[in-house]
């Protein structure tokens, strides 16, 4: 079901705010990963601001929905969403990657409320999400578990071990997103180590697969609703995305995986993001 105009505009505005925070954070730190953070901003926005049952005032609620950022280098997008949601003061975003900060280069569960799992070493998050989903089943809780994977990340063998287990244990309370932006560090995923056909692989592993435009709020939300209705299998939402989405000079550029913008580039990025109209 499509969002009404007002909800859609508000979600787009939130995503845009998070994008601005991403580039500001990375610029301030002179370090970090803007590309893969920007590509996931719309997915996290729908999850955190429309879908997930989470409460910043009760971050350990046993019934809360869980989100695992398996591609932990995209920490800026998670921090942006958590701050906007009220898990910690927004000013703290500017401490990202600095010494003594709670905002570690990669998310640290022990240091920051709202971070469900420490990640950063790629390929491990899907197994952890499986464990959370299994626990939900054991405890008869109806929370849902979400996990975001990178398209380079799924080259890790552990992802496929986890894919097999999720289907084997019929984890229909688990929904995974693949941030299919076609870039990793050494180049295009197709050139480095081609994971395609991703949809057929996950189907063959026993998953329900949905393919969407990962920057379309309605499609993201519809896919989440569809996943909830599927019984007996986990769902993989393959989100076609653009790495660096929203900042013209970062879009589809492999060089912006882990590079910080300088002052001038930051100004340009913010100018572009400030110019985004919410009702386009």
């Amino acid at each position, binding site marked *: 079901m499509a969002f009404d105009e007002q909800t859609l505009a508000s979600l787009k505005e939130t995503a845009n705010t998070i994008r601005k925070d991403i580039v500001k954070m990375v610029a301030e730190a002179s370090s970090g990963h803007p590309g893969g953070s920007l590509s996931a901003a719309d997915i996290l926005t729908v999850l955190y601001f429309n879908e997930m049952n989470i409460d910043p005032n009760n971050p350990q609620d046993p019934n809360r929905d869980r989100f695992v950022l398996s591609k932990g280098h995209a920490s800026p997008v998670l921090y942006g969403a958590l701050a906007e949601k009220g898990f910690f003061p927004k000013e703290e975003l500017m401490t990202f990657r600095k*010494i003594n900060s709670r905002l*570690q280069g*990669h998310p640290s569960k022990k240091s920051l409320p709202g971070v469900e799992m420490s990640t950063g070493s790629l390929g491990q998050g899907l197994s952890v999400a499986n464990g959370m989903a299994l626990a939900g089943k054991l405890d008869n809780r109806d929370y849902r578990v979400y996990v975001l994977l990178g398209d380079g990340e799924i080259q890790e063998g552990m992802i496929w071990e986890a894919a097999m287990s999720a289907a084997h244990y019929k984890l229909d309370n688990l929904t995974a997103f693949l941030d299919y932006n076609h870039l990793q560090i050494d180049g295009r995923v197709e050139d480095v*180590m081609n994971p395609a056909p991703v949809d057929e692989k996950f189907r063959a592993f026993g998953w329900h697969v949905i393919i969407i435009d990962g920057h379309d709020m309605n499609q993201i939300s519809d896919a989440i609703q569809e996943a909830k209705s599927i019984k007996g299998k986990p769902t993989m939402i393959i989100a076609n995305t653009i790495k660096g989405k929203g900042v013209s000079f970062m879009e589809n550029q492999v060089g912006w995986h882990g590079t910080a913008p300088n002052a001038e580039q930051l100004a340009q990025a913010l100018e572009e993001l400030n110019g985004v109209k919410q009702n386009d």
Partner: protein
Amino acid sequence: MTKIATRDAYGKALVELGEKNPNVIVLDADLSKSTKTADFAKTYPDRFFDMGISEANMIGTAAGLATAGKIPFVSTFALFGTLRVGDQIRNSICYPNLNVKIAVTHSGLTLGEDGASHQAVEDISMMRAIPNMTVIVPADAEETRQVIHAAAEYDGPVYIRLGRPAVPVVFDKNYKFEIGKGVVVNEGADVTVIAMGVMLSPAIEAAKELEKEGISVRVINMPTIKPIDKDIIIKAAQETKGIVTAEEHNIYGGLGSAVAEVVTESVPTVVKRVGVEDTFGESGKPNELLEKYGLTKEHIIEKVKEIIK
């Protein structure tokens, strides 16, 4: 003072090696720009394999290449080239004693801003505990160059631990690296400081400062952690009042432990360890982290003085 990152020296040495020896093959796991294997990839594209983000697969593939007489150098960040693939290294490389060189970069706290998830401070301990594995930590660019060539000539598994930031150049072409040998870089009679990797320069500086206070410090560079140079350690234990070790690694299982093992079995001597005190690191600038986690010249000086008094 000239500063060069050991990973940069590694990238250059690999290209030299590629020309010298057609059996040298390089594998990387989507970090070739950071590990500097990209230079080799450009020069010898047919002998370079990007395995994508699949470190365990990379280790196994290297083992297979080695069974056919190739000399694979595998590179990624230290954490993903050791802790991520411990069993694969043990069972597919060390147990059959295959000729694979694991040359990793971004080791220790000085990896910096990426934080604890990426900061390997346990790798030496782990690599040292696997039979057949040789463990080497070069301290500067020239030593790295020589280590890479020596590793290629040596038949068997070698772990080479390299770093991200530029570090002072200590050695020139006259320096001679030999696997299994420590090197006295500063003569001294009161206390011995044994250092590896990025801690060598602070150790030399500490000795200079202590000299001004009338304390004579022998500084030993210990690039090979395994097999460790027992003779040079025993001699230091006999001739000086005690030993301070300095390493960018957990104090459990690294250089300090290796040195302590040698002296307790031969010439029981006090050994004080400068290193990461069994804790995870965090995000920050390399120098801030070395300061916060107790890995500076000042910390070495403090330990030397504890032995003197």
